[in-house]
């Protein structure tokens, strides 16, 4: 585990010292600021608008960080040949992949915490009470973001950063449309289309499981079993993606 944590800490340092991260964070904080202005010009909907825009802004920039920083992580190790130093030492391929994942997840956690403190402070002042539902929504957003990191790591283990980013964004879009895809599959008369869509439904992750933005507006959170199922589902998919990345890396030569 020491090796995993060493790689993770190194990846965290790499990410946190990357200027691009600060650009994204600045934009995300600006988005929260804009939500306050938009809220103030709305008719008695200010809290709702701040919540909507704030959560969406945090999520949007979180996705950008996960995809674009994540897409480079494995590729850079190969391109800059730093992987020579790592894999020639007593480090297994899975330790390297898990370390990279944990390092990126930690960087994103720091960013999410920073944005959450600003966002939750604003909403608490506005509502005069702390919203645990918002906290729950942020937690599931974070879970989705680290799932995306695992996906982008899997893609970046065998393709270029640009392709890895594009594939991950495609998966992200499909992942948020799986319910619709399943409905179309059920209604379709054509067996080929129906079965193809069903396959897509089962292969791609159902990212809507982590989307609690609408729930926040209506004040409905997940109950205990729903929370556990969503967490386990996320962790299972992350495990699957990291296993895939490890197997791909094992087959490669440098």
């Amino acid at each position, binding site marked *: 585990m020491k090796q995993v944590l*060493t790689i993770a800490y190194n990846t965290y*340092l790499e990410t946190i010292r990357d200027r691009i991260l600060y650009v994204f964070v600045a934009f995300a904080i600006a988005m929260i600021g804009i939500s306050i202005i938009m809220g103030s010009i709305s008719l008695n909907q200010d809290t709702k608008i701040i919540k909507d825009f704030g959560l969406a802004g945090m999520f949007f920039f979180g996705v950008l960080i996960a995809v674009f920083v994540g897409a480079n992580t494995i590729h850079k190790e190969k391109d800059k*040949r730093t992987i020579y*130093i790592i894999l020639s030492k007593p480090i297994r391929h899975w330790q390297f992949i898990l370390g990279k994942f944990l390092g990126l997840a930690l960087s994103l956690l720091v960013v999410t915490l920073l944005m959450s403190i600003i966002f939750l402070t604003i909403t608490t002042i506005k509502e005069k009470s702390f919203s645990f539902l918002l906290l729950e929504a942020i937690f599931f957003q974070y879970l989705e973001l680290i799932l995306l990191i695992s996906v982008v790591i899997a893609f970046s283990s065998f393709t270029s950063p640009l392709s890895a980013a594009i594939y991950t964004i495609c998966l992200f879009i499909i992942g948020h449309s799986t319910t619709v895809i399943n409905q179309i599959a059920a209604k379709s008369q054509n067996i080929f289309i129906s079965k193809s869509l069903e396959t897509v439904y089962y292969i791609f992750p159902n990212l809507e499981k982590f989307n609690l933005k609408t729930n926040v507006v209506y004040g409905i959170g997940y109950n205990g079993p729903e929370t556990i199922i969503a967490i386990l589902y996320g962790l299972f998919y992350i495990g699957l993606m990291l296993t895939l990345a490890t197997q791909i890396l094992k087959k490669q030569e*440098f």
Partner: protein
Amino acid sequence: MNEAIKISNLTKIYYKNGKEVKVVNDLNLSIPKGKVFGFLGPNGAGKTTTIKMINSLIKPDTGEIKIFGQSSSEMEVKKKIGFMPENPYFYHYLTANEFLKFTCNIFEIAKSKQEKLIKEILKRVGLQESASVQLRNFSKGMGQRIGVAQALTNNPEVIFLDEPLDGLDPIGRIELKKIILEEKKKGKTIFFNSHILSDVEEISDYIGIIDQGKLIKTGLTNEIVPKNTTLEKYFVELIEKERQKK
């Protein structure tokens, strides 16, 4: 065990335009413990491929590599190995000190010992003044030095250096040769690739000459090189002779 490195029937094949190219062709080598082995060959001869196969970066098609009787890909064996790749690149955002700490952590060296160890190693490679400098600001020569430093952090039994003298100024070369000989004195086995034949002749106990993937000569340096010539002259003549045969 007196044999530190044993390479048997090692072959690596690549395909170029559908044609099979044996980059390393049935290589057999045996290097005793505590000796310096210089691996020589023209560009593209298969030296780096061999060193990468030993260090688990490339998989051999056939053959095996043993370090002290165990496969070189075993984790326990990797703990005893130090490796510096050719033209090494490092994490540019780390300082020399942070990078060596990173290496120490990989080898699970106790935190209490790290500071002293890193100071010592940086002093040995002449980088004590640059401990807090980010690696992005290092020159090529400094990069070579930190490359050697990271290969020494685990106090390895066997050290593999791929073109370690490349990019070093004359003082740097003298210092590095001194480090290699110091490690030899401690009983370490050193395997290195180099183009700088005068240096190889000076510090190697054994040499191996490889051309087009095939080992064409190996043995004790002072026995291989005839008395009235230099290793450089002998090397050129040998390569020309071997190519004419083909």
